[in-house]
């Protein structure tokens, strides 16, 4: 006798809900895919025309028919790395303080304050960076060059840090200055992810550590941080993804220069998104295609970074780090 056939098909309201949810869920994929396909479609003429030189050429001079994203990609990465260098320690420490140290009554205030930072429009961070932070960032850059000038990326060319009057204009509008402003935008996002993961640390293990005589710091290092390792990495990479694409603040702060420049303290750099924002308004059809090709490359990079971040965050949910 054959067993009774079980139908997995849902009926009635269930079916409506299932299909509705599936359609809505699919729309996210359709939109993201649509963006990718649109960019790829628009980028095709440019990629075909310039070929590999699109990735190796550093100049962006549409009026001389020379177009390449080597310089802007370097700039994008250096701004993002500077941003993460500031945002990473800040967000880890803030998340730890909020989840482990802060008194319960101010915890919610702190959380909403950090969230408020995320709500501030990026143009405000741009103006803040341009008018308020840049003078001090320039002095910090001078100090870094003076004392760590032997590190290749702290070098500033054609200027003497020990000159009687320092050459201020060489130290402003740099990837370093832009990175500081971007760090402030990235921090709340990374912090939120980390805080969430830290707060998922099993209460029992934390209490066990304390019961064994650990100080609170000992408990954090032995339980919370290992458990939250995935969250820290994931949050950082989500932040990195955002830092790669940050636009208006960068447009306001940097002075566009199309050179492959690992020297982050030196004036002038350009990022993919600031290039698009700066040149979009006056672009002709073929220039637009070139800009969208640059955008396509950025899209792919951001997609990879964010996907990696999502994978890492998902893995960390199991608390695998604490098993050992």
């Amino acid at each position, binding site marked *: 006798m054959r067993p009774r056939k079980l139908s997995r098909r849902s009926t009635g309201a269930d079916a409506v809900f299932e299909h509705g949810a599936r359609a809505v869920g699919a729309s996210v994929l359709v939109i993201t895919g649509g963006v990718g396909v649109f960019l790829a479609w628009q980028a095709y003429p440019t990629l075909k025309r310039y070929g590999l030189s699109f990735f190796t050429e550093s100049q962006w*001079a*549409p*009026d*001389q*028919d020379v177009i390449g994203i080597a310089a802007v990609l370097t700039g994008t990465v250096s701004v993002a790395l500077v941003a993460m260098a500031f945002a990473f320690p800040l967000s880890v420490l803030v998340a730890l303080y909020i989840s482990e140290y802060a008194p319960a009554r101010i915890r919610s205030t702190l959380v909403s304050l950090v969230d408020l930072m995320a709500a501030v429009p990026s143009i405000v961070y741009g103006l803040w960076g*341009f008018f308020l932070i*840049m*003078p001090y960032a*320039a002095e910090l850059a001078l*100090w870094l060059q*003076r*004392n760590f000038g032997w590190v290749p990326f702290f070098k500033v060319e*054609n200027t*003497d840090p*020990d*000159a*009687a*009057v320092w*050459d*201020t*204009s060489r*130290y*402003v*509008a740099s990837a370093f200055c832009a990175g500081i402003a971007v760090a402030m935008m990235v921090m709340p996002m990374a912090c939120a992810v980390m805080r969430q993961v830290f707060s998922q640390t099993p209460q029992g293990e934390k209490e066990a550590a304390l019961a064994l005589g650990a100080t609170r710091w000992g408990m954090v290092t032995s339980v919370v941080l290992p458990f939250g390792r995935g969250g820290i990495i994931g949050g950082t990479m989500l932040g990195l993804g955002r830092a790669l694409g940050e636009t208006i603040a960068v*447009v*306001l702060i940097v*002075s*566009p*220069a199309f050179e492959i420049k690992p020297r982050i303290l030196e*004036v*002038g750099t350009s990022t993919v998104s600031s290039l698009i924002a*700066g*040149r979009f*308004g*006056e*672009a*002709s*059809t*073929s*220039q637009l295609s070139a800009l969208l090709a640059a955008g396509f490359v950025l899209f792919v990079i951001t997609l990879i970074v964010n996907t990696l971040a999502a994978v890492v965050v998902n893995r960390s949910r199991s608390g695998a780090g604490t098993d050992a």
Partner: protein
Amino acid sequence: MNRLPARLLLSLLVSLSCVLAMPGASHAAVYAQIEGTGSTWSQLIVEQWIADVDANGMKVVYTGGGSSKGRKDFSQKSTDFAISEIPYQGTDEQGNADTSNGREYSYLPIVAGGTAFTYQLKIGDKPVRNLRLSGETIAKIFTNKITNWSDPAITKDNNGRALPSLDITPVVRADGSGTTAQFTTWMDKEFPSVWRPFFGRSGLTSYYPRKGRAIAQAGSDQVMNTISGFAGNGTIGYVEYSYPVNKDYPVVKVLNKAGYFVEPTDYNVAVALTKAKINRDKSSALYLTQILDGVYRNADPRAYPVSSYSYMVIPTGKTDSRMTTAKRQTLADFLYYSLCSGQTKAGDFGYSPLPVNLVQAGFEQIGKLKQADPAVNLSNRDVRSCNNPTFDGKNLNKNKLAEVAPQPAACDKTGAGPCGTETGQNKPSTDGGGAATPDANTPAAPGGGGAAAPSAPGGGAPPAVDPATGEVAAPTGDTGTAEEVYANPTELAAERPIDSKTFGWLAAVLAVGIVVLPGVYAASLRRRRRPGGAR
């Protein structure tokens, strides 16, 4: 409950129908919001006009963005007008179309002005405010041939007065800009041997080829911000004269063909532009556009060489899908205000009013809006009723402003001075009060300024000689008595790096201390409060 919304709706409908019925009424025009983008060169005066007409119910939105963007937005029908320094180029540098995409349009001059070279240069802590440069020196600075403020060419332009040894940082436009186009046109026409090897080609460009130490910034305001910013010492950039006037920043006095160094005041611009060749061929697509070769070489001692007009591009097509009667009416009335009363404000803002013949030609162009749409009301628009400062009441072709323009001060001549008057104040630098005849008051001590200036700062000259003008006890008139700033370009030995290293590390230790010390202090307090860790 239901009554109130119904009444509201009714009143709304009534008022709406009133508005809709307006075109028939003759007493009040119906306006609709118009939008435009383009030049940041003329943005300051346009924004003032917009603020002025707002009281009359005209809503005009102008967002700048650069001339290239203005022309492109107009061609894509995303704006109702554009402002650009240069006309549509047919094809741009890359061979792409730079046309209106078939949208019908007319050019219309809206304001004149001088492209000023503003700078920040400090000696000690005092800003230099009376720098003068020849056109060739300027071209060489922006093509990275002259890279230091103590360069002999600059010293020579300033009659032997040396500036500190400081690297020059040119600030150029990063976006497609009409200011850049005007500036490079001037360099290409006047100094091709300097400009062409640097650019690699001949001709103008809207995108400045940034090289070397130059810093690029988008938009005139960002260029101005960079120059006036904390890191601006040693920078020089090109913007419309209104920007430095607004920020109280000095501008370079540029050498003209008559051998005088002049500032782009409204007078000097008006004088220079009397030699502008305007395309008078009404059938030409470039009707009313400018050819400025004569301006660059204008031999009048008052002429500012880098002067030009700014143009509005207006849609004149009958079937223009973006335009409505209300929009055309708004545009026409806005332009009427701009070309008439608006011009009286030009001088104060660092621009120069249009001569009346161009205003009249502009009126004819506005008339094309009525040809496109007969419902547009253009009655009572006459040039003669226009309150224009260049108009002397009779001869339309005369520019009154250019005739009353004061002669430059004697100390502004090559080989004399330099004058101590501050630039960027929107005041003419002149010897007499009003209009003076050229060279009437020849300096009594022509050699005195030249020989004494470099070595004798300020009051070193004999007491009878005015230190500012080099003139013997002459009535100073508008000539300010500002103190001159001098420098001896001496290279100081660099400070000993060992010192700064010590202080550098001290700074690092302090920074760590600021973060850590409060915690340590709090911990020690707690420990003291509970002696021996009471358990």
